[in-house]
């Protein structure tokens, strides 16, 4: 069914939705909440992102490590005048808890939600936990869209009163296996009701071009806004780790070589032989190259038809977002009239 919109033509009225609907190339950035109850961490990280992105994703116990909740951190962002994208996983909550949390999130002013399956708990700091996975990410998208468009709960019971009107996001892993099925799984997410997509990290542009070609052939880029995931590499070791140990991430050797080259002046020296200053200088050289690579990746992504924006995942390195956005020529961000509903 065609989703009903607000009287202004928007589904949710979020800034992210407006930026995309008005044809701007969107920028979202990720903010990882602290493993503590300290609101200052959120505020400090938020300041690094203010003005440099259209909405800020707040992760939901990422890699299954207990952190401040996405909705709690999102409420702080709203107090700070910034717009969150609430990440919601299926790992820790059943359909009751998810719906109830989303009603609360909407009441607190949140308008974007990213629906994820969630990393398995064995990766995190509570590997003995019982998981939930009552729903999967596609069923979650469907549930959030039913709450908004059909005004009923997952059970089918009608939702009386204000429905939560979220701009609904989902993730895509273009390079996970089976790779030939990935565009079709994306199609399932969009059919379920996803309005925007944020992809896993892209480092291999030709591989992503192949994926987008299939996405366009299915017409998916016209049914949802696709934001390509990017992230600055901090060191050759991080690049190799991403390539070898994180499923669904392709890191071309040429990028690893560039990072190695940046650290070449210190090559052959063991950690013990290096002074603190030398270590910092090498790390800075790597980081500068990592940011430069990220800028170049964005410039390449800007040219791919069907890419509606980028999602920057600078994991525990939010300082990198400003130089990346500026370097890619995406600063300043469009200022759209604030919607009140």
């Amino acid at each position: 069914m065609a989703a009903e919109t607000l009287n202004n033509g928007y589904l949710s009225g979020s800034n992210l939705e407006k930026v995309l609907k008005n044809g701007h190339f969107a920028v979202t950035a990720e903010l990882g909440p602290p493993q503590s109850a300290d609101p200052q961490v959120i505020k400090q990280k938020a300041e690094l992102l203010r003005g440099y992105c259209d909405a800020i994703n707040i992760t939901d116990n990422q890699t299954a490590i207990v952190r401040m909740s996405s909705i709690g951190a999102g409420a702080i962002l709203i107090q700070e005048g910034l717009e969150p994208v609430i990440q919601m996983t299926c790992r820790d909550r059943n359909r009751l808890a998810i719906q109830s949390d989303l009603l609360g999130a909407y009441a607190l002013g949140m308008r974007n939600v990213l629906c994820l399956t969630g990393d398995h708990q064995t990766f995190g700091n509570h590997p003995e936990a019982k998981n939930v996975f009552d729903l999967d990410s596609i069923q979650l998208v469907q549930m959030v869209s039913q709450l908004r468009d059909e005004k009923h709960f997952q059970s089918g019971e009608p939702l009386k009163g204000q429905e939560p009107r979220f701009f609904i996001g989902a993730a895509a892993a273009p390079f996970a296996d089976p790779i030939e099925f990935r565009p079709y799984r994306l199609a399932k997410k969009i059919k379920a009701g996803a309005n925007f997509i944020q992809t896993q990290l892209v480092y291999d542009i030709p591989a992503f071009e192949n994926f987008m070609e299939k996405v366009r052939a299915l017409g998916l880029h016209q049914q949802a806004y696709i934001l390509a995931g990017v992230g600055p590499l901090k060191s050759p070791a991080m690049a190799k780790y991403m390539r070898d140990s994180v499923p669904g991430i392709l890191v071309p050797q040429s990028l690893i070589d560039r990072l190695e080259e940046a650290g070449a002046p210190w090559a052959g020296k063991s950690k013990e032989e290096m002074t603190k200053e030398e270590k910092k200088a090498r790390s800075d050289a790597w980081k500068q190259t990592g940011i430069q690579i990220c800028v170049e990746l964005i410039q390449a992504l800007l040219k791919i038809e069907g890419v509606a924006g980028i999602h920057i995942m600078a994991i525990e390195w939010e300082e990198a977002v400003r130089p990346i956005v500026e370097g890619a020529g995406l600063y300043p961000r469009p200022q759209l009239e604030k919607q009140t509903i």
Partner: protein
Amino acid sequence: MIIAEQKPLSELKSLIGSAEKVLVVGCGTCVTVCFAGGAREAAIIASSLRMATKLDGHPKTITDVTVQRQCEWEYLDQITDQVKEADVVLSLGCGIGVQAIVEHFPSTWVVPGLNTAFLGLPLEQGVWAERCAACGDCILGLTGGICPIARCSKSLLNGPCGGSQDGHCEVNPDIPCAWQLIYDRLKSLGKLELIMEIRPPKNWRTARDGGPRKIVREDLRLGAEE
């Protein structure tokens, strides 16, 4: 079948506690086939416990017996006398066998000798793998005969997630990705349209989530309508 593993001897000793007369009860069905609790294992465990308690300086009287199936009253009737004489019964049945003995002999203390692991099959000698989660609403007809509830780490109905790489699950490279298997099988049989459909949220009421389960077949009950 039901796959189980023996508990370590130290735990068995602790479960037996101060009991003097111990009856080890094996089971002749699933746990015999998976080499965890059949007649052979019952004899070995009884003998190991005899040696261990002797070494500890407090030798106990430990005997063993094996029934065809611990989960049926008629087989348990056959060991009534031995059970009555024991201070503790160490059941080498699955969790069902342990509880059947408990229900059949209410005045006897019964402890488990096995950890019941899963419903599965032997892939090869010495290797067993899970195949069924007994969810009560079989979807194998939609997934090419490969169960994502039992075999996908996240029990996804619309998989695979982004953690599928080279045919493996990211949780452990020893776990084949169930959805890769489903995809490959549907593809090879020309039924990929099945994976293109969105599967709705599962009704978990038929699984354990609906509370302990029970089946009543009136047509089979004795003393039912003539």
